[in-house]
């Protein structure tokens, strides 16, 4: 057995600049998807609790469809379906085009999970809060925005952290949407050096550098922002 290959970390060191730029791609996708999925997920949740039946049904349909479709399919639909077949191009530069298509696919997918977490959060807000909001003359949208949602968000910061961690790890799937990031680089390095243990470890540690702080941050935020009743 060739132990040298198993313990040889030099491929990682030799490609450190590529590694950094590849992980930078994951970070850019994660941050963009994080913001967009929170916004979209909040809108979907608002639809699901709205007094208008059509909106409620549409919201439920959205969540059930996206949550139960594999991410790979969603992303393939964005890259092959939207871009190649339907010629829907966000930009003429391929790298920018595929970045935004990947972001689009991941955001609509992650938003379904954000929406489910938030709906659970709304269920933790006592009925009396909504009644008091209506009683002082706030409209439905105002009550939701100023009284219900802020409390719902605070209740689900920690679970939202889990959604975000899953989302960061899911960025490895965007290689099916033709966008180059860490997982794509790992695949290339396997072809060049063989699938060695150090390369696995290197990429695993790379992802933990992104996900562990995310988890700590959301847990800290959850404690800090908790609503005392």
């Amino acid at each position, binding site marked *: 057995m060739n132990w040298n290959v198993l313990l040889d970390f030099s491929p990682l060191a030799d490609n450190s600049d590529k590694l950094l730029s590849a992980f930078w791609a994951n970070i850019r996708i994660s941050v963009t998807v994080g913001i967009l999925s929170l916004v979209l997920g909040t809108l979907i949740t608002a639809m699901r609790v709205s007094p208008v039946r059509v909106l409620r049904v549409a919201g439920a349909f959205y969540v059930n469809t996206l949550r139960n479709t594999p991410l790979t399919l969603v992303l393939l639909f964005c890259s092959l379906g939207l871009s190649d077949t339907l010629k829907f191009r966000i930009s003429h530069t391929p790298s920018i085009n595929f970045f935004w298509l990947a972001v689009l696919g991941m955001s609509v997918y992650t938003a379904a999970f954000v929406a489910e977490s938030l709906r659970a959060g709304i269920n933790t807000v006592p009925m009396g*809060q909504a009644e*008091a909001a*209506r009683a*002082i003359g706030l*409209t439905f949208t105002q009550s939701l925005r100023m009284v219900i949602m*802020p409390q719902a968000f605070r209740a689900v910061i920690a679970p939202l952290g889990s959604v975000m961690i899953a989302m960061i790890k899911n960025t490895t799937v965007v290689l099916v949407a033709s966008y180059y990031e860490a997982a794509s680089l790992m695949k290339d390095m396997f072809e060049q050096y063989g699938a060695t243990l150090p390369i696995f470890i290197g990429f695993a540690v790379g992802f933990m550098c992104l996900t562990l702080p995310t988890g700590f941050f959301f847990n800290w935020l959850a404690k800090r922002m908790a609503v*005392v009743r």
Partner: protein
Amino acid sequence: MTDGKEAREAEVSGGGPLVVLENVNKFYGDHHVLKDIDLTIHRGEVVVVIGPSGGGKSTLCRTINRLEPIDGGTIRIDGKPLPEEGKALAQLRADVGMVFQSFNLFAHKTILQNVTLGPIKVRKADKTEAEQRAMELLERVGIASQAEKYPAQLSGGQQQRAAIARALAMRPKVMLFDEPTSALDPEMVKEVLDVMINLAAEGMTMVVVTHEMGFARASANKVVFMADGQIVEENTPGEFFTNARSDRAKDFLSKILTH
């Protein structure tokens, strides 16, 4: 206190009807919770609604600002029928103050923010002016020093007084109190009742669902006795407590007044 009440009685006779319920009916499924309710509340009048639990008192109170929609009849406030839903209903609710049994202060906002939210967002008041007025109201209910705290940091009595200030900040035409002291420790009941007694003395139109007979005696112009979804008796407090007309009311009073 009594002087205030007498002065108000003179006023009340001059004030026109403010809240008028006509033939109001409500069902929860098969359960008929409000049966043909007719009730008129005049400007400046303090109406106390008493009766056994499950008799429809709270439901009646909550129909007046349509937290509970009704299935039949009409409710008019200041001559206008209650709007169905949407902006018009929100506007109307802004004119009707409500105080809940469980306070329902916004848990993520400070006491001051609780009181200023409505004036700023609904009445479009200037923030500084709203805060100034909120502090005056908090001063009036005796908790100005708690303004920067969150609801969970206050005692029940303080929370309920803050909730009264929040409702008053909207300058309501009428105040609804849905069992405001039922969730309080006994030693905190008085501080809340004192605020309500003062409010009544200042001429506020009030509908109060309560078990506090002392408050009814001190401040009410009219006592409405409800049982099984019906108004069984409408009377002056003096008459009602000493010489109730209906047997149902006599039975109820004998159970609560003998202890």
